[in-house]
């Protein structure tokens, strides 16, 4: 046992990451046994990935917010109002200039949503950072204000149908990369991961720092490549039904479906968005001044200030970033449902906070990882989908998830205490 953990230490893989992946695996295998093999299927894992996307995107931003010792209770409502505004922009505002189904509509809609999200988040951040009102209160107010505003956008009317290109962001029919492009995306991800590892090793060798043993390096690289390849393989194994495939083929202007051709889903566009955002947010958090200051401020606000960091402006930026990520999630969520309703995102603030916290983000500030939050979101969604599949009632589902949240934080604290001694 001891030698195993010392071997693990040599790989420099975070024990917390290993632990979280083990929990996720246990949940998947458990539900698979209970449902007689219905859980770990390409179809269900595909659905799981698409259902997790919206919360996962917001959870990456929530990590920064919580690391800075703040909280954002308004993200669900913000998602609602942004989805409504984007719905109106793409179905009423833009068509009056560009006509319906213009290829630029989805981009302009998304840009408008991002700008509004930045502005609303920045406004909340200003009140928190410069006027000194606690984030809990400001965003609790925001939770009410933006949910109300979501209703006002259309006086409560649901906006549908949405622009046909915008809808692809949700990963519905046609909104996937298919077999070939999924492999291209997976290959790019592998190349990027291996390159980053090689660069880091070269840098450390140049300065004569201790290196991890080559076998550990190879093991980590192998695991990464296997994980990416496995994901693509599984999602490529989920076939699109013949009828739907014919329709997609036609709308893309490719004529009739060739004889014997089997169309597969592959990575959903929303999942690609999650992966790209996760990589960008990880780089921002670890390798930019902005990210360094977010973590430093969370660790010791006074020290950050004495080091010349403008923590008030930093607060504005972090909440503005959170707002922009809410816009991305709003696009994914409304696109998946192919409509925007004013109750979209209700209770998402709790899912997002829970994802970040289950993923190891400490409410005391200064500690949290992007990959943790995404795995946390996946754990939550797996539990929810699995229980629904088994036929657990909604009320029991929320009881279980609530208990899991508390348990996760408790175990995490035990682990932290164990490490400090």
């Amino acid at each position, binding site marked *: 046992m001891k030698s195993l953990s010392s071997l693990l230490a040599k790989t420099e893989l975070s024990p917390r990451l290993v632990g979280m992946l083990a929990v996720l695996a246990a949940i998947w295998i458990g539900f698979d046994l209970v449902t007689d093999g219905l859980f770990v299927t390409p179809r269900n894992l595909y659905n799981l990935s698409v259902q997790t996307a919206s919360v996962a995107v917001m959870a990456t931003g929530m990590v920064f917010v919580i690391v800075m010792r703040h909280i954002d209770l308004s993200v669900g409502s913000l998602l609602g109002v942004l989805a409504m505004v984007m719905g109106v922009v793409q179905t009423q505002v833009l068509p009056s200039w560009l006509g319906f189904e213009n290829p630029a509509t989805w981009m302009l809609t998304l840009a408008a949503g991002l700008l509004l999200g930045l502005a609303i988040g920045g406004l909340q951040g200003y009140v928190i950072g410069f006027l000194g009102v606690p984030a809990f209160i400001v965003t609790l107010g925001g939770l009410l204000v933006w949910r109300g505003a979501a209703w006002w956008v259309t006086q409560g009317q649901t906006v549908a149908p949405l622009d046909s290109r915008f809808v692809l962001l949700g990963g519905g029919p046609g909104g996937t990369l298919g077999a070939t492009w999924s492999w291209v995306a997976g290959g790019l991800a592998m190349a990027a991961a291996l390159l980053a590892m090689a660069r880091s090793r070269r*840098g*450390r060798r140049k300065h004569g*720092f201790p290196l991890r043993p080559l076998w550990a390096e190879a093991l980590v690289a192998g695991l990464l490549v296997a994980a990416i390849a496995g994901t693509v393989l599984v999602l490529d194994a989920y076939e699109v039904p013949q009828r739907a495939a014919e329709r997609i083929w036609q709308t893309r202007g490719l004529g009739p479906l060739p004889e014997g051709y089997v169309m597969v889903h592959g990575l959903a566009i929303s999942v690609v968005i999650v992966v790209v955002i996760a990589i960008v947010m990880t780089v921002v958090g670890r*390798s930019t*001044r902005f990210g360094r200051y977010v*973590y430093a401020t969370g*660790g010791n606000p006074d*020290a950050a200030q004495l080091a010349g960091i403008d923590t008030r402006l930093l607060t504005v930026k972090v909440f503005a970033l959170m707002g922009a990520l809410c816009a991305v999630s709003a696009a994914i969520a409304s696109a998946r449902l192919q409509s925007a309703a004013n109750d979209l995102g209700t209770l998402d603030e709790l899912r997002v906070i829970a994802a970040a916290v289950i993923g190891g983000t400490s409410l005391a500030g200064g*500690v949290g990882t992007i990959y943790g939050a995404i795995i946390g979101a996946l754990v939550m969604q797996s539990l929810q989908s699995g229980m629904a599949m088994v036929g657990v009632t909604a009320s029991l589902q929320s009881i279980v998830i609530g208990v899991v949240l508390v348990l996760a934080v408790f175990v995490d604290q035990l682990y932290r205490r164990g490490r400090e001694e």
Partner: protein
Amino acid sequence: MAEGPTPLVEMRGIEVAFGGVKAVDGVSLDLYAGEVVGLLGHNGAGKSTLIKVLSGAVPARAGEILIDGAAVRIASPQDARRHRIETIYQTLALADNLNAAANLFLGRELTTPTGLLDEERMEAETRRILARLNRNFDRFSTPVRSLSGGQRQSIAIARAVHFDARILIMDEPTAALGVQETAMVAELVRQLKAEGIGIFLISHDIHDVFDLSDRVTVLKNGRLVGTRRVAETTQDEVLAMIIQGEPPSSSRHPREGGDP
């Protein structure tokens, strides 16, 4: 008055109040290049508050600061850094969740040409600097939370001396250090002094202060009691100033041992 060179720093009539309490009450003092001035006083005398005015961490209600004879405004830690004032705070001011290099370069990170943090270069520099202060230090990738008090203090000292300070403020820099490390800091102070840096040194160890300082200034209850040249006073006189808040009556004859 026969004027010598202009002081590096002059603080005049500094006043700081927290609520109704005057933590610093009309204190004036100066510091020359290549000089060490020791600040002494009981707990709560106002030493840390006074030097925080100079480092931009605490706003003064009244008074002025001159650097090289010119009045300057120090309203933030950034202003102080611009005037090349570096501070080792009594609380160390470290972000506990970050490692040694991240703390050392906090606010002044080295970046690669692409604008990303250059972790390797920062770690290399950190190893080089810390080797001068604490030969046994080897925990570069752990968060400073899990380091010992002395190791943390070494990092705070390294940070203050690395960035070409002209004015160095050391608030109890050796409180947590072992004998060997304390000796290394003393050596460092002498070296920096020889390079022409002006140093304010706060310590409760009166022997250390006498050992390293050219002059000592005593505060009590936020007020200036007096300033003495170390060469012209005794530890007894200074102790009396700290405790009674005024020079002892016998201090008309400071060189008591030398009296005929």
